[in-house]
C-alpha cells in the first residue's frame, strides 16, 4: 500500500469533481470505493432571496484544521486517500461551495469517513458565511443540528 495522501485546498476558483476524484486513485488500484460530498449554495432561505453568499475564512488555521480532521478520520477508518476543497469569496446560488472525497478499499469506511469529515468541517473549520440579499447582508447563524451531528461521533467512541 502506498502512503495516505491528504489533499486540502482553500480557493476562490470553482473545481471539477471528476478531476478531484481521479486524484484520489493510486496506481496500484487498491481503491474499491470513493464516497464524496458536494455542498452547493441554495437559492431559497427562510429570511430573504439570496443573491450572493460570501465566504470568509482564517487563512492558515483553515488548512491546519482540515488536515487535523482528515487525520482524525484516518485514525477511525482504514482510508487510502482523502481530499477537501473549500471555496471562499463571493458565490452565487447553484455554485459549488465544498467537496469532500474519501477513497478506501470498501464502502463502509468511505461513507463513514466522508460523513465524519463533513460533520467536523461544519463545526470546527474556521469558515463563515454571509448572505447578501435584497434586505442587505446577514451573517449565517451556526445550526444547533450541526453541533448535534458532530457530537454523535463522540458518543460512538464511548
Amino acid at each position: 500500500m502506498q502512503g495516505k495522501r491528504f489533499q486540502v485546498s482553500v480557493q476562490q476558483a470553482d473545481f471539477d469533481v471528476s478531476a478531484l476524484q481521479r486524484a484520489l486513485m493510486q496506481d496500484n488500484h487498491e481503491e474499491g470505493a470513493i464516497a464524496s460530498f458536494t455542498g452547493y449554495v441554495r437559492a431559497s432561505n427562510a429570511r430573504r432571496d439570496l443573491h450572493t453568499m460570501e465566504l470568509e475564512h482564517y487563512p492558515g488555521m483553515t488548512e491546519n484544521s482540515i488536515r487535523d480532521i482528515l487525520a482524525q478520520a484516518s485514525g477511525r477508518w482504514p482510508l487510502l486517500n482523502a481530499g477537501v476543497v473549500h471555496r471562499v469569496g463571493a458565490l452565487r446560488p447553484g455554485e459549488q461551495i465544498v467537496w469532500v472525497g474519501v477513497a478506501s478499499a470498501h464502502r463502509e469506511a468511505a461513507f463513514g469517513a466522508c460523513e465524519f469529515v463533513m460533520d467536523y468541517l461544519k463545526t470546527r473549520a474556521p469558515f463563515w458565511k454571509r448572505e447578501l440579499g435584497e434586505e442587505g447582508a446577514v451573517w449565517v447563524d451556526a445550526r444547533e443540528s450541526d453541533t448535534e451531528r458532530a457530537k454523535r461521533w463522540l458518543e460512538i467512541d464511548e
Partner: protein
Amino acid sequence: MKVLFFARVREQLDCAGLELPWQPAFCELDALQEHLCQKGANWRDVLSQENIIRAVNHSVVDSSCVLTDGDEVAFYPPVTGG
C-alpha cells in the same frame, strides 16, 4: 503578538487585527482579553459575547492558557462553513 478578529466579531469591532508589543501582562489569554476589553465599551460588549471562540496558534482553546511572545490569538463567532 498578533491578535485577529473574524466575521461578525471583526465587523462589530471594525477591526481585523492588531499587532501588540509583548507585555508580561499578556502571559495569560484571559489577561490579554481583559486588556482588549479596556479599549472601550464596544470592545467589552463584543468580546464578552457568550459564544465567542478563541484560538491560539490555530488551535481552539476551551479555557484560558499561557501565552508567549510571538503567539497568534484569534477571536471569532461559531463557524458556519461547509
